[in-house]
C-alpha cells in the first residue's frame, strides 16, 4: 500500500509539472487544445493526490506500523478519530494534507470555471499548478510520508520491518479539536491561494477591470472564514488543554496564523474601494500577494525551526525549500507588477477625511501596521541576530502594547466605517447615525468606572463595544422598519428579509457583531485572578465568589491511558453549583502525560481548574484555579462571526422579492402551520 501511495504522488508530480509547462506553452502559443490538456493534467493531479491521501489514512486505520509516519503518530489502542487525525499530526502528513486541500480547491476552481473567463483561466490554472507542484516536490523528495521502516542487509537489499505497535499520538493532540482545528486553519491558509492565483493571473494577462475581484470574492471569504475559525479553535484548544489559563500567548506559530488573517481582513475591506470607486488597485493586488506569501511564511515558520515555538515541528531542512519558494513567488509577483503596472491606474482620489473611503484607508493602514508589528516581533530574534549578532526575542508585553491600541482603533472603525457615506459625510448624518450609540457607550463607561472597572483599555473596549453593537443594531432596525412599513410583515421577518436582500452588507454586519463579542471577551482578561493550593480531600479554597472543595482523588483507566482525577465541588455564594473533574492522563504508548482542564463556564466568567500534579513533598494533589471573566464571549463571537460569513456567502434574494405577490398567494395556506411548529420548538 505504501508503494501505491508513493507512486500516486510521483504521478501527481508529473501531472502537475506537465500542467505548468503545457499551460505556459498554451498561453504563449494561444493553443486552446493544449490549455484543455493542461487543465486535465491538473484535475488528474488532484485525483492522484486524493488517492495518496486516502492511502495514508488507510495505512493509519489498518495499523500499518511498517510505515515510519504511521508508527510515529499512531498506536493500536488509539481512538479511530485520532488515527484519522494523525494524518496531519506530523511534518510529512501535514504537508501531504496541505497538498490535498489545495487539490480540492484547484478541482473546484477549475470545475466551476470550466466554461467561463476563457482569457483569464489559463493563467489561473498555471499559477495554481505551480503552487501544487511546489508542494508535491516536498511530498515526494523532502518529506515523503510513505517511507518505510527497515534495515539494510549486507548485500544492500532492504528489509521492511514492521513495529509491533506505534509510538502513539502526542497526548496534547488527543483532544477533539485536533480533528477540526488543523483542517480549518489549513483550509484558510490554502484557500488564500485561490484569490492569489486570480490576482496574479489578472495582472499577468492584463485581464480588464475588477472582474477578478468579483470572481474571487466568495473564495476569499471562504478562506478568511476558515482562517478565523481555525485561529479561534486553536485558541480554544490551547485554553482547554495547555492548562495555563490563557488562550493566546503570542507564540510564533500563533502569530503566523494571525498574519495572513490581518492582511486578508484588510483585503476583504479594500476591494470594496476598487469595486465602488476604482481606487487602490495596486494596493489590492499587493495585499493579496502579501497574504499568500504570509501563508507560505506561516507554514514555513511552523516547520523550519527558524523561530523557537512550543507548537513547532522539529527542525528540518524544509525551511530552505520554503524560503526558495517564497523568494521565487515574490520575484514573480514583482516582475508581473513591474511589467503591467500601468494597467492598475486609479480612477479616483480621496476627497474627505470623514468618508467611507478614508475609513477603509485607515482600516487598512492599521491592519497592516498590526501585521507588520506582529511580524517584526515574531522575527525579531532572526533580525537582531543578523544585525547585532545577538538573538533578542520580545515577549507578550511587546505584542500587547502594540496590538491592543490598534485593536481598539479598529473596533472604533468597525462601528463608524460602514455608516459613513462614500466621498463625504454630512454632520447631520453623523449625528443621526452615531448620536444614540455614542451616548449609550459613554453612559456604560460612566456606570462601569465607579463600579470598579478601572483598567483603561478594558474600559475603552467596553465603551466602544456598546457603541459598535448599537450602531449595528440600529442599522438593522432602520432597514427593517422601512420594510415593515411597506409590507406589513413583523419586525423579525423584516430583519430576515433585509439581511437576505443584501447578504454581503448585512452578513458583514453580523461578522462585525461577532468581532464586538470577541473584543468584549478579550477585555475580560484584564480582570483574571488565579490561586494555587495543595489540597487534601475535604479541604477547600476560596477564589472570587467561588469556594472550591476537593472531594476525592482517584485513579481512572481510559482507553489508552490512566488518569489521576480530582473530584471538585464548586460552590458559588455558598450554593453548590457543580462538580469538576480535572485530571492528568498518562498514556500507555509513550509514557507521556496530558492535563485535562475542567472548566465551569458562564457568560460572566469561567472557573478554570487544573490538577497540577502531586506536591513534591507531601504527595497531595496541587490544584490551580483561575477565574477568567468573559471568556465565553470570545467563543460566542466566533460562532456569530462564522454565521455572518456564511450569510455573506449566500446569494442575494432579490428576484424572490420581485415576484412576491405571486409567491405570497401560493404560499398563504402553507404559511399557517409555521407558527404552530415554531411554538412547538419553543416548548421543547
Amino acid at each position, binding site marked *: 500500500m505504501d508503494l501505491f501511495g508513493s507512486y500516486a504522488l510521483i504521478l501527481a508530480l508529473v501531472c502537475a509539472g506537465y500542467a505548468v509547462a503545457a499551460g505556459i506553452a498554451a498561453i504563449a502559443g494561444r493553443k486552446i487544445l493544449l490549455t484543455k490538456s493542461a487543465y486535465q493534467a491538473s484535475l488528474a493531479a488532484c485525483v492522484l493526490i486524493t488517492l495518496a491521501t486516502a492511502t495514508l489514512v488507510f495505512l493509519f486505520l489498518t495499523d500499518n506500523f511498517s510505515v515510519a509516519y504511521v508508527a510515529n503518530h499512531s498506536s493500536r489502542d488509539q481512538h479511530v478519530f485520532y488515527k484519522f487525525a494523525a494524518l496531519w499530526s506530523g511534518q510529512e502528513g501535514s504537508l501531504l494534507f496541505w497538498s490535498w486541500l489545495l487539490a480540492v480547491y484547484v478541482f473546484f476552481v477549475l470545475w466551476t470555471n470550466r466554461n467561463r473567463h476563457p482569457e483569464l483561466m489559463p493563467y489561473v490554472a498555471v499559477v495554481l499548478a505551480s503552487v501544487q507542484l511546489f508542494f508535491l516536490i516536498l511530498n515526494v523528495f523532502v518529506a515523503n510520508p510513505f517511507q518505510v521502516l527497515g534495515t539494510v542487509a549486507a548485500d544492500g537489499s532492504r528489509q521492511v520491518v514492521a513495529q509491533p505497535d506505534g509510538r502513539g499520538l502526542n497526548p496534547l493532540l488527543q483532544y477533539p479539536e485536533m480533528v477540526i482545528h488543523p483542517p480549518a486553519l489549513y483550509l484558510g491558509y490554502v484557500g488564500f491561494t485561490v484569490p492569489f492565483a486570480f490576482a496574479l493571473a489578472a495582472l499577468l494577462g492584463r485581464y480588464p477591470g475588477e472582474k477578478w475581484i468579483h470572481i474571487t470574492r466568495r473564495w476569499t471569504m471562504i478562506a478568511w472564514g476558515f482562517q478565523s475559525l481555525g485561529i479561534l479553535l486553536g485558541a480554544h484548544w490551547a485554553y482547554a488543554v495547555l492548562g495555563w489559563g490563557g488562550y493566546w500567548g503570542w507564540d510564533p506559530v500563533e502569530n503566523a496564523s494571525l498574519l495572513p488573517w490581518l492582511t486578508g481582513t484588510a483585503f476583504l475591506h479594500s476591494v470594496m474601494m476598487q469595486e465602488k470607486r476604482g481606487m487602490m488597485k495596486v494596493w489590492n493586488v499587493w495585499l493579496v500577494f502579501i497574504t499568500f506569501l504570509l501563508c507560505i511564511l506561516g507554514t514555513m515558520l511552523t516547520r523550519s525551526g527558524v523561530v523557537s515555538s512550543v507548537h513547532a515541528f522539529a527542525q528540518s531542512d524544509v525551511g530552505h525549500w520554503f524560503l526558495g519558494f517564497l523568494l521565487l513567488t515574490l520575484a514573480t509577483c514583482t516582475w508581473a507588477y513591474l511589467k503591467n503596472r500601468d494597467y492598475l491606474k486609479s480612477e479616483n482620489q480621496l476627497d474627505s477625511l470623514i468618508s467611507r473611503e478614508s475609513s477603509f484607508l485607515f482600516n487598512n493602514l492599521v491592519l497592516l501596521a498590526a501585521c507588520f508589528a506582529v511580524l517584526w516581533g515574531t522575527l525579531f530574534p532572526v533580525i537582531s541576530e543578523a544585525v547585532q549578532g545577538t538573538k533578542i526575542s520580545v515577549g507578550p508585553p511587546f505584542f500587547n502594547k502594540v496590538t491592543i491600541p490598534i485593536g481598539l482603533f479598529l473596533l472604533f472603525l468597525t462601528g463608524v466605517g460602514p455608516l459613513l457615506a462614500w466621498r463625504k459625510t454630512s454632520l447631520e448624518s453623523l449625528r443621526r447615525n452615531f448620536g444614540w450609540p455614542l451616548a449609550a457607550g459613554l453612559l456604560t463607561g460612566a456606570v462601569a468606572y465607579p463600579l470598579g472597572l478601572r483598567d483603561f483599555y478594558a474600559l475603552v473596549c467596553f465603551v466602544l463595544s456598546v457603541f459598535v453593537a448599537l450602531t449595528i443594531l440600529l442599522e438593522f432596525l432602520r432597514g427593517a422598519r422601512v420594510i415593515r412599513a411597506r409590507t406589513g410583515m413583523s419586525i423579525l421577518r423584516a430583519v430576515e428579509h433585509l439581511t437576505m436582500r443584501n447578504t454581503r452588507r448585512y452578513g458583514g454586519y453580523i461578522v462585525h457583531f461577532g468581532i464586538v463579542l470577541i473584543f468584549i471577551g478579550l477585555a475580560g482578561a484584564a480582570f483574571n485572578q488565579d490561586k494555587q493550593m495543595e489540597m487534601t480531600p475535604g479541604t477547600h479554597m476560596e477564589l472570587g465568589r467561588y469556594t472550591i472543595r476537593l472531594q476525592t482523588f482517584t485513579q481512572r483507566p481510559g482507553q489508552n491511558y490512566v488518569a489521576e482525577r480530582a473530584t471538585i465541588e464548586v460552590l458559588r455564594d455558598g450554593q453548590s453549583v457543580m462538580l469538576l473533574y480535572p485530571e*492528568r492522563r498518562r498514556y500507555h504508548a509513550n509514557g507521556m502525560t496530558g492535563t485535562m482542564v475542567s472548566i465551569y463556564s458562564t457568560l460572566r466568567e469561567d472557573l478554570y481548574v487544573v490538577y497540577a500534579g502531586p506536591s513534591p513533598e507531601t504527595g497531595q494533589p496541587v490544584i490551580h484555579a483561575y477565574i477568567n471573566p468573559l471568556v465565553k464571549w470570545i467563543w460566542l463571537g466566533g460562532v456569530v462571526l462564522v454565521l455572518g460569513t456564511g450569510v455573506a456567502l449566500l446569494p442575494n434574494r432579490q428576484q424572490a422579492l420581485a415576484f412576491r405577490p405571486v409567491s405570497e398567494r401560493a404560499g398563504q395556506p402553507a404559511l399557517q402551520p409555521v407558527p404552530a411548529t415554531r411554538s412547538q420548538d419553543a416548548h421543547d
Partner: protein
Amino acid sequence: MKNGKGKFLLAGTIILGTTVWLGWVGVTESKTYYYTIAELETLRGAQAQRRLRVAGDVQPGSIERYRGRVDFVLEQEGRTLPVSYVGQNPLPDTFVDRAQALVEGRLAPDGRFIADHVQAKCASKYEAVPNPSTTPGSSASSPATSYTSGPSE
C-alpha cells in the same frame, strides 16, 4: 486636492508614529537576550543583568520538585546550567527528562538561572528517528524515547 492629501498624510503619520512609539516601548520593556549556555559564562556586568533566554535539554534525573520551586539542570553541547523555576504556572506536561526546554529569566550571582517561564518540547514527540538506517542524514540529536519504553509499561 493638495490640501486633502495633506490631511491624510498627517492622520496616517500620527497613526504610524504612535504604533512605532508603542512598539519601541514594548521592545525595551520585554526584550530578552538569547544565549547559549557557553555564552552565559562569558557575560560580564550589565550584560548579565539583562533578561535572558536559554535553551537546552533537561538532564535526565535532574528534576527536583520543591514547594514553590522546581530545580533542574539544562545541558547543551556538553555544558550544564542549574536552573530554578519559580514561575506561577505549572510546568507543561512536556517538561520531562531529556525534553528540549527554553527558560526565561535572570542569572543569579551564584551562577544559577532563576527562570519565571519555561517552555518545553518533548524531543521524541513531534519528529523522531525510529530507525536511523531508513532515514539517513536525519539529525542524530533527537534522543528519542525508545520503542521499548512504550507498551511494556
